């Protein structure tokens, strides 16, 4: 298994999805409430997590900065497309985050009552697509997995979503499709440039990065095409409008997977593809991206503050938090970029947990309006305690996971963008304001809505879903060393490589320019000699 470990990880959930569809004992007749299907899906996702933990994380060499567990099989040989997988320090914890969240999401599926089997199958296909996106090192393979993430999410929001689900899901898909199709043209352009320069047709990322050269104009346009696709996914202000709609309408599991993993794919795309391929284009765009990120931080926080719907509040807080990740990465030094990756994982944990908590409330009361709640702390103490922990983790209190990432980001970014970072700091304060206001309004005071007097506390299954998240919040908050140790060396060497490529491209262009100048002087100097 070890030589095909990554393939096993990717396709195990897909196999589960297929089995869910074809095996007779999951049919509606023998499995009316979908309980067998739920336990089966839980088994599959847990198995995937256990494999990724034991085989991937424990055997991962943190000092090696190159991709590991590589698999390389020719796929479309005529076009130099291969099935090329690998994992490095940048992607390993994102993979772990994905496999870790999936069993929790399956546990949370107890609030789904109709077409349970199809819901679980879509979740499993989504897991396959997400893992494939994180592990693919061939640009075309990446694109296929990237697009494969669309269809399952489209169904999850569209079938099990809320009142405006159709609007939300179409908006989500159309936004994403526009961006990613333009990226496809850019990918093809890069590959043909590579073929013209080297004579070899390949979609392998490492060859494209090390051998292709672009002029500045090309880099700007190509980076813009990639940045549009990834920026929509993150989402970076002003491309964020699909996100609140999608979050609010999605079922709980859908929101968790959206906030937990899908949004990270955008930034992951910047890290893995856009920056290494077009370092100078990226350099040129960095201040603007940073500015948009900071606008997103403050705007997201202000809008979150004004929300009356808990889920919408958490959704806008996502826009705000992802702004930090983007800011940290585009500041582009080892500290801030490491912080950015750590923060991606933290955001997956804490926002995922907050969406689960909102789901718990919604299951019981079928409303998400803040005004419908109040004084819950006395009625549901365990729930209130969990809510407090994840709220604090979300506003980055020291000793919780959120602090580690945000601190590294702000520390690193200040060096590059001092003013923007100062502005971003105000987002930290605003974050505390709106989250604590939310907590105060829902948990403290008297129970003023009669129905809340009969509210039940979290049950065993919900507790089982929150327990691992709870542990991770404090593990990363108190002892983040293993996490940072695995990420930092890769990030350091990654930044060095991108900078080197940037300098090489610059040198090549100057060389070309000077030779052109020399040529233009040649006739006159020859004339002078006569």
């Amino acid at each position: 298994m070890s030589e095909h470990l990554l393939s096993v990880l990717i396709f195990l959930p897909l196999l589960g999805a297929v089995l869910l569809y074809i095996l007779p004992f999951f049919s509606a007749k023998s499995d009316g409430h979908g309980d067998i299907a739920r336990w089966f899906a839980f088994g599959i996702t847990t198995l995937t997590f256990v494999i990724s933990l034991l085989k991937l994380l424990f055997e991962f060499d943190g000092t090696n900065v190159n991709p590991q567990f590589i698999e390389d099989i020719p796929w479309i040989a005529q076009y130099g497309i291969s099935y090329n997988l690998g994992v490095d320090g940048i992607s390993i914890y994102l993979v772990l985050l994905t496999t870790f969240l999936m069993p929790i999401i399956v546990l949370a599926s107890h609030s789904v009552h109709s077409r349970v089997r199809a819901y679980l199958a879509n979740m499993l296909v989504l897991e396959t697509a997400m893992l494939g996106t994180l592990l693919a090192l061939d640009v075309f393979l990446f694109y296929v997995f990237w697009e494969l993430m669309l269809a399952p999410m489209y169904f999850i929001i569209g079938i099990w979503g809320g009142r405006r689900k159709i609007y939300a899901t179409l908006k989500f898909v159309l936004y994403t499709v526009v961006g990613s199709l333009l990226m496809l043209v850019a990918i093809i352009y890069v590959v043909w440039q590579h073929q013209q320069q080297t004579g070899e047709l390949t979609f392998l990322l490492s060859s494209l990065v090390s051998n292709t050269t672009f002029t500045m104009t090309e880099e700007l346009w190509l980076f813009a095409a990639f940045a549009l696709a990834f920026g929509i996914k993150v989402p970076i202000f002003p491309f964020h409008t699909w996100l609140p709609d999608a979050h609010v309408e999605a079922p709980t599991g859908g929101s968790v997977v959206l906030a937990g993993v899908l949004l990270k794919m955008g930034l992951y795309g910047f890290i893995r593809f856009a920056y290494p391929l077009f370092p100078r284009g990226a350099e040129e765009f960095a201040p603007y991206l940073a500015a948009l990120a900071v606008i997103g931080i403050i705007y997201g926080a202000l809008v979150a503050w004004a929300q009356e719907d808990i889920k919408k509040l958490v959704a806008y807080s996502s826009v705000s938090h992802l702004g930090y990740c983007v800011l940290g990465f585009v500041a582009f030094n080892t500290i801030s970029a490491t912080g950015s990756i750590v923060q991606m994982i933290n955001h997956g944990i804490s926002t995922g947990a907050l969406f689960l908590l909102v789901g718990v409330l919604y299951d019981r009361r079928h409303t998400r309006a803040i005004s419908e709640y109040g004084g819950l702390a006395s009625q549901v103490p365990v729930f209130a305690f969990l809510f407090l922990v994840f709220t604090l983790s979300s506003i980055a209190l020291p000793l919780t996971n959120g602090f580690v990432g945000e601190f590294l980001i702000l520390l690193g970014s200040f060096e590059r963008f001092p003013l923007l970072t100062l502005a971003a700091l105000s987002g930290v304060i605003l974050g505390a304001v709106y989250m604590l206001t939310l907590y105060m309004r829902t948990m403290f005071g008297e129970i003023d809505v009669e129905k809340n007097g009969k509210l039940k506390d979290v049950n065993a299954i919900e507790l089982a879903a929150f327990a691992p998240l709870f542990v991770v919040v404090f593990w990363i908050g108190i002892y983040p060393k293993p996490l940072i140790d695995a990420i930092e060396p890769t990030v350091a060497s990654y930044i060095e490589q991108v900078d080197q490529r940037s300098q090489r491209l610059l040198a090549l262009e100057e060389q070309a320019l000077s030779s052109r100048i020399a040529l233009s002087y040649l006739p006159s100097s020859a004339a002078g000699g006569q």
Partner: protein
Amino acid sequence: MSQLGMINEIWLVSPLLILTAGAVAVLLIDVFLQRAWPGGLFTGFVLVAAMYTSNYLFLGEKFLPGQRIFHNLLYADRLSAFALGLFLCASIFVVLLAHEKLKQEKVEAAGEYYSLLLMTTIGAIIFASAGELITMFLGLETMSMALYCLCGSALTVRASSESALKYFLLGSFSSAFMLYGIALLYGLTGTTLIPELAAKLAGMDSTVLYIAIGLVLIGFLFKISAVPFHFWAPDVYQGAPTTITAYMATVIKASAVIALLRFIWGAVPGQAASWTGAMWTLAVITMTVGNLIALRQRSVKRMLAYSSIAHAGYMMVAMQVDPVLQGGGAAILYYLVAYTAMSLGAFAVVLVVASANPGEPDADEITRFNALAQSRPFLAATMALFMLGLAGIPPGMAGLLGKFYIFSSAVQAGFVGLAIIGVLNSAISAYYYLRVIVAMYFIEPQGDEVVEKPELGVGIAGILALCSIGVVALGVFPSALHDSARVTVQSFVNPTSLEITVEQMKAQPRPEFNLSLP
């Protein structure tokens, strides 16, 4: 090239002969039997027999690069073999559809229907493998005449008769344009043979020549329903029986595309500079108009008609590209196969859904698809796959790969702007394809309203399963089809470059097949 001898040449057209015999036999049996009989199955058998013969010839490597037969009137090269295989496969599927659903289509005369279907297939094959322009025209007319009748074969349905008349009038008009163009070309060069035309036209530059090329192109563009020659398509597609619509969108379109390729790459490649400009504009207009109007359709059948216009536009993108060096030819052939699988499947679903309310004018409205996922999960799942495929979104992988091949050939040839317009169009099209999925999956059944459950027969279920497998498998393993498409295009455009390849292929052991008869 005609050293083959009469007998061998007849062997090479044996699929056509079997089809002709079948067409006559179906008619005769129908006349003498005077009662209902499974004509569909018989037609199916004839098609399978023709398929078997053509495959036998194909595997025996009798379709050599650049080979022409009957005094150079027909090509018997790999492109012909490709067309034969594709058309016969698609026809078999259409016959199966007709066999199960002809009653709901209100077609009474089953014998004539099947006989005409076979004749249309014969015409399509001749159209796509003609080595000379008059033969090409004859193929076109054989195909079209039979098709006009088929469009009107639902005698009691007014829309069907209307579509037949519309198609006939406009079709004759466009054929006349084409014929005029052929006459001018003959006047300029004294020949109508395709490669000879190219040789004589080399370096020629005259206004008459450009008018001639333009006139011939109009005839072709009408058949592939390119804008601005598309006005017939939506009405005819919607009015004709759905089995025939499926047939038009796949076989007829593919046949016209292949014949067009033979003309532009075989007869007038030297004048490429003059027609690629027009093609660029037409491709952009075709994609955009097709997609934009499709957005507003309420009838799924009509929406698929406009989408088929848009797909013709995508293929026209790759027609401006060098067929061999930049992969334009292989891209188009791959796209044809992928599009055939997806749209055949989609029309089959429309047929089944519409058959729940036979004869009602709004039987194929998008609202009829509401909550199909609950009444017919299999039908809905396959339709969702075809829609995603047409939009180019995985898991509809064949559609994604088809677009990838087309746009990568365009980028390679320097048409980056065209590729960008193409992908933006593709994004527009995602909206109306996804709307069908919205209806099938996201809209809950209203109250206790009784939903008619459409009948799904074994044959149609089989077709849908095969098309679905095709849509996924062709995309996951695209190399086999794409590689063979590459060789196929080369065998027509640049036959001499292939001789070594064929020699190498011949060296491999394969079942012996001796053509010399006792």
